[in-house]
């Protein structure tokens, strides 16, 4: 009954966050004017340009990124059977960041930067899967250890790249590492991937519920565990890769959003996955809106804001305990 209320509520929250993002900024745009602009009606030229060409793409990119990260986090947590897992725990963001920093270091930007980050994420993903699979047996623990060790390796490479880079490119690199949505101009791909991820994950949702009780129990209840593990790993990795490609490594969303929903009493992944997508998206839209308005014209790293919003929210939920 709670679940039936939750998704519509999260839908409303999403709409509210989108509206707030589109209304906020240095140029004042009223709600009525916004509606006119969005519905293709008249609007002053300036407001129209700001909303449609600047705020809307960035807001949608933020929503897609949050949705991708929260879904990936929910999947990783089940895959590793560890509620503390996040999308970055296996080093996929590390591979993406390393490749992105190399690209930034040689002066690439825009699409080339995205392609490079995505390629880095894919390399990291294949590396973890190949190495964890090597012995023939495949367990969440082995995967987790392989991923954590490789993530540490990526971390060292990132430090090395930062140490070797000239001062001029450091700022851009740091922003990328902390997560940055200012360059996200084409949200359509990310939105499509987020939606496709949900469509692919939902048929597996009841199997995910069973998998939370252990591989043996899941196998006994008719789940093909090996196949399910591979499917979740691929899906979670691709969602993470898409997210870091759009916005760099934005922390916190992937860990906290699924867990916050679990604390609210959502345990069924058929509700948790779409719920996480909505809440993750809305949270990142809010965070990004604050990041670009709080200290305007200065832009803050969005990762700082997600943490500033997420930490107290999470602690409050944690104090209430599981419902």
């Amino acid at each position, binding site marked *: 009954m709670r679940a039936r209320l939750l998704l519509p509520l999260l839908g409303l929250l999403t709409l509210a966050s989108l509206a707030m993002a589109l209304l906020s900024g240095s140029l004042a745009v009223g709600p009525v004017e916004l509606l006119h602009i969005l519905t293709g009606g008249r609007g002053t030229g300036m407001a129209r340009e700001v909303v449609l060409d600047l705020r809307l793409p960035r807001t949608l990119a933020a929503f897609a990124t949050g949705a991708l990260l929260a879904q990936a986090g929910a999947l990783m947590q089940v895959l590793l059977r560890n509620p503390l897992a996040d999308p970055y725990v296996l080093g996929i963001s590390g591979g993406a960041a390393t490749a992105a920093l190399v690209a930034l270091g040689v002066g690439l930007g825009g699409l080339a930067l995205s392609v490079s980050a995505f390629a880095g994420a894919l390399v990291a993903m294949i590396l973890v899967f190949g190495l964890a699979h090597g012995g023939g047996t495949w367990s969440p623990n082995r995967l987790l250890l392989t991923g954590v060790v490789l993530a540490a390796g990526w971390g060292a490479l990132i430090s090395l790249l930062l140490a070797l880079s000239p001062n001029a490119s450091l700022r851009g690199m740091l922003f990328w590492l902390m997560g940055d949505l200012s360059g996200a101009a084409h949200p359509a791909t990310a939105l499509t991937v987020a939606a496709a991820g949900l469509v692919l994950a939902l048929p597996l949702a009841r199997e995910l519920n069973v998998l939370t009780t*252990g591989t*043996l129990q899941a196998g006994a209840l008719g789940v093909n565990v090996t196949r399910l593990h591979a499917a979740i790993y691929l899906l979670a990795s691709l969602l993470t890769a898409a997210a870091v490609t759009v916005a760099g490594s934005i922390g916190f969303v992937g860990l906290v959003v699924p867990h916050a929903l679990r604390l609210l009493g959502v345990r069924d992944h058929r509700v948790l996955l779409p719920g996480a997508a909505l809440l993750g998206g809305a949270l990142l839209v809010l965070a990004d809106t604050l990041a670009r308005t709080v200290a305007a014209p200065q832009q803050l790293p969005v990762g700082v804001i997600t943490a500033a919003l997420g930490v107290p929210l999470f602690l409050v939920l944690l104090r209430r305990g*599981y419902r």
Partner: protein
Amino acid sequence: MSAAQGAMPEAAGLAARGLTVHIGGKTVCRDLDIVFGAGQCWAMLGRNGAGKTTLLHTLAGLRPAASGTVELDGRPLAALSRRQVARRLGLLPQSHQDPFPARVLETALSGRHPHLAPWQWEGPLDIELARRALARVDLAGLETRMVDSLSGGERRRLGLATVLTQDPAIALLDEPVNHLDLHHQVALLAMLREATRSGERTAVMALHDLNLVARYCDHVLMLFGEGEVLHGPTERVLTTENLARLLGHPIGRVTSEVGPLYFPM
């Protein structure tokens, strides 16, 4: 095609054909031929590390055998999907993992998983089946409790309720009475015995309590380690000589009003 639609199987039940199982360099059984027939209630006996759990997992198709096959209703397990297997065969694992929060009713309800289509939601009928299973293991009234707030024995009975909700024709139970108090041990085994007596169900249980075995199981499978096994009807196999050799400890036997009683000497 589901198992139910196939040609009527010649042998309903679970069978091993030439089954050899190894674990950690040890042989659990060698060329084992055995039929766990419908209506039979089996006890699996052996010392710690003899391979009871390994053999149960192999029989459930969750672990590959070194050689030989396991057949479910006359068809090799390898030819069936996990889902088809799970509709006919259930396993109670030796221990339970609960890293994520869950409620008692939801956990029992997961037993319906193999019976539902991928897109199907659990309906009132499924919930009713889960409630009934919980009542059968004396957990009625705890439906909304969090699983991690249960005692060890209650958690064990919840595991059994999940198997009962799954309602398999063949139930493999790995030390089902672990953590249970005396009353619930007897009540549970009596219930399983009753279920197999109807003639359509089979239970195979790893057990340590010889008196429960003598009282509730009609067949016994002994794992001596190093691949040697002995199996047959309880009254023929459960002798003090066999038990002394199996357990490495002299065993005594007296007759009582509830049947034979075994004790370590």
